[in-house]
């Protein structure tokens, strides 16, 4: 069963140099309270795997806590403009961090391999980009046929950080919009979850069950200024303030 703890205790288990990944997608359910605590505790040399989830990575880069990052997309579709992640962009243009840009499918298939406990996974069509020359991927021969197929290595992050809507006392979690979170939880070695609310009554339809979770933290507003449907929408003013636009 997960330990229900405060944010400080949960994040103190994260070692410098860990490989971490965030649940949520783009502006929705980014685990921002966790990111803020990583920053407060000055966790260093982090290796970040970012499915389109721009704010956590950008915040950690801004604080100089990122050693390397693997990502597919870093931008914000705001109400009146599109903004590229500012600190991420600067870090790349000035060579501050190690990085690997990949099609999102490479991360998805890597996580699938990680969840299954196998060393690699086919990810066909990845070769149709110049990224293929620079990324961790190879062409291999299909052992059952003659076709060459692109494969990517397994991804098993040390930590998955997820913000979800509700949990129960036992630590069962329900993610209303589990875009990538369940796969991430299956692939990661340890999972830390913050939720808007821990309910008195047991959940009857949890999609992220207690046995995946190491620490559970009650953190209302844990995704702000990103949204957490249906609890709150994005705080556009705060996001713009952060992005300086």
């Amino acid at each position, binding site marked *: 069963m997960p330990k229900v703890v405060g944010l400080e205790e949960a994040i103190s288990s994260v070692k410098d140099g860990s490989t971490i990944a965030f649940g949520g*997608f*783009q*502006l*929705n359910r980014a685990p921002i309270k966790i990111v803020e605590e990583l920053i407060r505790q000055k966790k260093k040399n982090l290796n970040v795997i970012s*499915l*389109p989830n721009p704010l956590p990575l950008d915040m950690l880069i801004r604080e100089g806590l990122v050693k390397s990052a693997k*990502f*597919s*997309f*870093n*931008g*914000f*579709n*705001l*109400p*009146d*403009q*599109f903004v*590229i*992640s500012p600190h*991420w*962009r600067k870090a*790349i*243009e000035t*060579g501050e961090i190690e990085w690997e*840009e*990949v*099609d*999102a*499918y490479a991360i*998805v298939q890597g996580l*699938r391999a990680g969840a299954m406990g196998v060393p690699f996974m086919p*990810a*066909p*069509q*990845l070769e*149709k*980009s*110049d*990224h293929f020359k*620079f990324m961790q991927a190879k062409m291999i021969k299909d052992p059952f046929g003659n076709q060459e197929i692109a494969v990517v290595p397994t991804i098993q992050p040390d930590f998955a950080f997820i913000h979800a809507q509700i949990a129960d006392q036992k630590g069962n979690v329900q993610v*209303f*919009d*589990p*875009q*990538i979170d*369940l*796969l991430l939880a299956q692939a990661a070695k340890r999972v830390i979850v913050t939720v808007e609310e821990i309910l008195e009554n047991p959940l009857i339809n949890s999609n992220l069950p207690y046995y995946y979770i190491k620490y559970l933290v009650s953190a209302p507003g844990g995704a702000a200024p990103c*949204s*957490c*449907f*249906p609890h709150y*929408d*994005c705080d*556009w003013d705060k996001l713009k303030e952060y992005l300086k636009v």
Partner: protein
Amino acid sequence: MKEVDLIITCLAREIKEGDKVLTGVASPLPMLAIQLARRLWAPNLTYFNCIGAVDPVIHPPFPPSSESSSVLKERNSFMELAQSWDLAQKGMLDIMFFSAGQIDQSGNVNLTCIGDYRKPKVKFPGPAGSTTLRSLVRKSIIFTLKHNSRTFVPKVDFITSHATEETRVITNLGILSLSAASARLLSLHPGVKAEAVVKNTGFPIQIPAEVEETVPPGEKELKTINEIDPTGQRYKL
């Protein structure tokens, strides 16, 4: 008539009744086009929004972002991100729209950087899923509101997604068809001269002797776009 309304209409016309359409990140114009097609001629299209909402009902005002959580409110089901590729691999996605930082004459697209990949002069936001999905969906449409010689270049600095056999590109000046064999102008938007396309395209482009004019959005289309986006969110993009 505003340029954005014309482009939304052109994108929408690519969608046929019954098509399965997926929108990726930062895709407000394709989202508007899908709503338009659904209301006027494709009531049975299937729409997947990349935040997971399947067939979301989107009430006005139009959401502030194509990834806004308001899209999750009224939906038939939820699709996890990974399933996008599963559907596409099985031939179950008909159409997707992609934007571009640079496009070359055969249809290769750059969403990665200007300059050297390792030390870019300017970093673009990245591929998202466009490398793989572009080659997996039945029809991929490229669009840009910046038809100029910085976008349309002889050779892209980086190939983020490879050209398909034929690439249709919808721009603020017209509609182009790009392939390894030829780059052709298919139609010119009303009021645009062929010379403007030649001047703003950084590679040779074939102009037919009698260029077709893009059919502008009719009254019904404009009225519907206004109903979908009564506050004019689309003009701020």
